[in-house]
């Protein structure tokens, strides 16, 4: 079993080892798992070159963090509306939300391209941030969680005269910390790894995110295999840290929303 697990992450181990090898050792067979001496220059190149990963990191962090915060707040609001307030047409509206999940992003790329161009946000970070604030998955997942919170907890506050906003802000959000954390981690991973949207809506190199930066690196250094692996390593480090920190949340959140789905 451990062997099978090892086999799964073997490509990553190979990637990291290759990033500190000398070029002549890349394809040596049997694979050299321990290089003769560590070569750090590939990593130095990735971080200090003309197009530095430091810039891509700043861009990605800005987009992911602003995106996640907005998506969490707006999804939580909507999820509260869908789970705690009774009104006619609510369930039909929710069904409409779910049906939106079927639309492939490819359908939306072309009109969004035209729309963003017209609104003047094409080729700016707003083209990635603004749409990311509106997450159907977020509404769906948080609604599932809110439904599970006993009604008595919020109804008592309602009888005491608290309005919906107060109940939402003072009661619902604090009660849902684990669900909010789960959504934030999952959403962060999607935003950080998003390649397709960045590919379509960004052209200016100064605005590139980490996935586009990696792609750019390979276009310019496609024979520098060690450099490629150093770039790939740089690209996955943040997600690795987030994953180690929030593993429990990610796994509970994904399996919870899918099994109950």
């Amino acid at each position, binding site marked *: *079993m*451990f062997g*099978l*697990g*090892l086999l*799964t992450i073997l490509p*990553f181990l*190979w990637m990291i080892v290759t990033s500190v090898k000398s070029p002549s050792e890349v*394809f040596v*067979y049997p694979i050299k798992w321990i290089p003769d001496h560590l070569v750090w220059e590939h990593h130095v190149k990735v971080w200090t070159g003309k197009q530095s990963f430091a810039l891509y990191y700043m861009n990605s962090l800005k987009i992911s963090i602003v995106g996640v915060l907005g998506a969490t707040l*707006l*999804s939580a*609001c*909507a999820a*509260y*509306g*869908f789970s705690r*307030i009774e*009104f*006619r047409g609510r369930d039909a509206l929710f069904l409409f939300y779910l049906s*939106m999940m*079927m*639309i*492939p*992003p*490819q*359908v*939306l*790329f*072309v*009109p969004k*391209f035209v*729309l963003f161009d017209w609104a003047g946000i094409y080729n700016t970070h707003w083209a990635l941030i603004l*749409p990311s604030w*509106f997450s159907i998955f977020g509404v769906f997942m948080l609604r599932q969680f809110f439904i599970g919170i006993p009604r008595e907890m919020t109804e008592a506050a309602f009888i005491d005269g608290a309005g919906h906003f107060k109940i939402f802000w003072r009661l619902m959000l604090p009660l849902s910390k684990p669900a909010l954390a789960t959504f934030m981690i999952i959403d962060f991973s999607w935003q*950080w790894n998003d*390649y*397709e949207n960045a*590919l379509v809506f960004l052209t200016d190199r100064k605005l590139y995110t*980490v*996935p586009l930066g*990696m*792609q750019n690196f*390979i276009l310019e250094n496609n024979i520098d295999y060690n450099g*490629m692996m150093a770039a*790939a*390593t740089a690209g*996955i480090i943040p*997600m690795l840290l*987030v*994953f*180690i920190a929030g*593993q429990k949340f*990610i*796994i509970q959140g*994904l*399996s919870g929303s*899918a*099994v109950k*789905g």
Partner: protein
Amino acid sequence: MKWHRKEKIAGLLFIAPNLLGILLFFVIPALFSLGMMFTDYKFANPKYHFVGLDNFKKLFTDDIFYTSLKNTTIFLAAVPVSLVIAFVIALLLNRSVYLKGLLRAMFFMPYITSGVAIAFVWMLLFQPTEGPVNNFLRGIGIANPPGWFSTTDTSMYAIDIIWVWFILGYNMIIYLAALQEISEELIEAARIDGARKWTYITRIVWPLVSPTTFLLLVTGLIMSLKTFGIIQAITQGGPSNSTTIVSLYVYRTAFSYYEMGYASAVSWVLFAIILAITLLQWFGQKKWVHY
């Protein structure tokens, strides 16, 4: 009556900020795209004409489109393959006591990793002449290992291998969650009845997790249909369109050839496929899923 109206306003106020965005970034673009597929809109030339069903006529005689459909089918085969492997791993992992958390994290790692980083690594691993995979195959006595991404008849299968590996962790996590829902008494009862391992798995466990299997199959197919990033980063659809799947073809038609009208038509065909699979889920689950 007054209370009801107040509730409705409150409800809509909570939903409104999100709903506005959904309208702006999902609904309006979708409607826009529906209109666009009947035009010859090209980005370079903003003048466009209403061409009726011409884009669809073009579609039926477009060889690359047919190739992309075929490639998509091969691509989707990765989903059931990954499910079976994930089920077996979940079974084994569910019983093992040691290192469970670590193993779970190991299997899950590809899923949270950037598609572009994955593309880089596999591009080198599958390098045909000196790559580690082919070196290994030669090492165990295969004189002519596959060309992977370099030949048209193997490239799509190379993508499949990566995709099975990529979605494995997610499927496994969901199976593990489903396995934990199976009650201890049922397992005990089976053991007392002397059910053999194989019978126990095929007759009891597999049917019990069939709702999960079905859900993973359908959502996996839909998710895969929407994806093109990894393939774009590895092969850009080549060599000679052998890895061009429908979603990638839409992207390329729109943003390399700037045929926005035609791209819209192809993207709605993709939607039709997704809709068909979703309806299958809706109506088909009662037939063979045991609740």
